[in-house]
């Protein structure tokens, strides 16, 4: 592929990625803030204890549990939903990169990016194991 055409596609890729990252982060911040306000409205004058690690926690560690709590307007569930959006942002960036490199017919980097995506999905879906 011609050098200038590759550079043009690289710029397009960069722009799309930049937007993806910003929208993901903004959405996450709004959701976390909403959950945070709800948390403080209900718990402002409690004394949270983070000094010792609680193996049995009051918040969910699984995806279905987090969605369930968020829908039930649990402040923890809403904050966790926002954090999931944040974690998903770089994952989405990798997905976009696969597509972009495929458009450029850059097989080498399609493969490299798919390997990264595979590792990410492995970690996210087998996390607690």
């Amino acid at each position, binding site marked *: 592929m011609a050098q200038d055409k590759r550079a043009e596609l690289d710029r397009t890729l960069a722009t799309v990625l930049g937007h993806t990252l910003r929208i993901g982060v903004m959405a996450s911040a709004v959701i976390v803030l909403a959950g945070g306000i709800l*948390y403080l409205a209900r718990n402002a004058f409690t004394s949270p204890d983070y000094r010792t690690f609680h193996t049995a926690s009051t918040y969910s560690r699984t995806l279905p549990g987090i969605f369930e709590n968020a829908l039930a307007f649990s402040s923890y569930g809403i904050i966790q939903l926002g954090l999931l959006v944040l*974690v998903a942002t770089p994952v989405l960036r990798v997905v976009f990169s696969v597509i972009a490199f495929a458009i450029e017919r850059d097989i080498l980097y399609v493969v490299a990016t798919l390997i990264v995506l595979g590792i990410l999905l492995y970690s996210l879906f087998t996390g607690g194991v």
Partner: protein
Amino acid sequence: MNALLLTVLIWCGGVAAGLLGSLTGLGGGVVIVPLLALVFGVDIHYALGASLISVIATSSGAASAYVREGYSNMRIAMFLEIATTIGAVIGASLTTVLPPAIIAVVFGGALIYSAYLTSHPPKSTAGCVPDRLTAKLRMNGTYPTPEGPKAYDVRNVAGGFGLMTVAGALSGLLGIGSGALKVLAMDRIMCVPFKVSTTTSNFMIGVTAAASAGIYMGNGYVEPALVMPVVLGVLPGSMLGSRILPKAQLKVLRTIFTLAILALGIEMIYNGFTGRF
């Protein structure tokens, strides 16, 4: 201390950490973990969880500005992310079995080693010749300067890949972005220009941290009420940092970078050995 006051204080710490993290390419985690563990007495697992999540926020927040500026090199980032994500899964898994004091001492050691390396001025990138592998991987690129785009070549991708695996493992083990090591792998070993190294590193940090995030969340390290003010503080801090970066002087950046990580490293090791974890 009540939850409201604690939340406000942690938020302030998050703003400072985000600013420093994005200016230096560190990712904020190196400040968050000592801040939470040493100042607020938070259990190290919660500190790791809050830090790792804030690292993703710093990376994505700042990177959205950097990609438009044209500093990041997507091919270098994506290729080396294979190494960092594999390392991250290994490192994050280790946090479930290692005693907290060991994590604290490794944390301090990693910081001091980075400070030592950055206190030595880098070789000029002018004499860098690309080797056959980097030419094949098309990792060369350009970056903006006041005099227009400047081209650069990279070398030794195998050495960079090896160090990136270590950087990924430390990221997963310590809940940090490992920005210092990522920058060193590119700046020193692969001969990538410093500003390209820091911004590409910042870009890679989020993906590396996401590889550990599933393991952290599954093990309950991510305490929502604690992470909330950290993330909401780190975001404006890192946005501000990414605005300052194109105008910032490299010498000042390196000095802030070195002094901050040195002081925190000593503190973490001291506390690890005196059994405060």
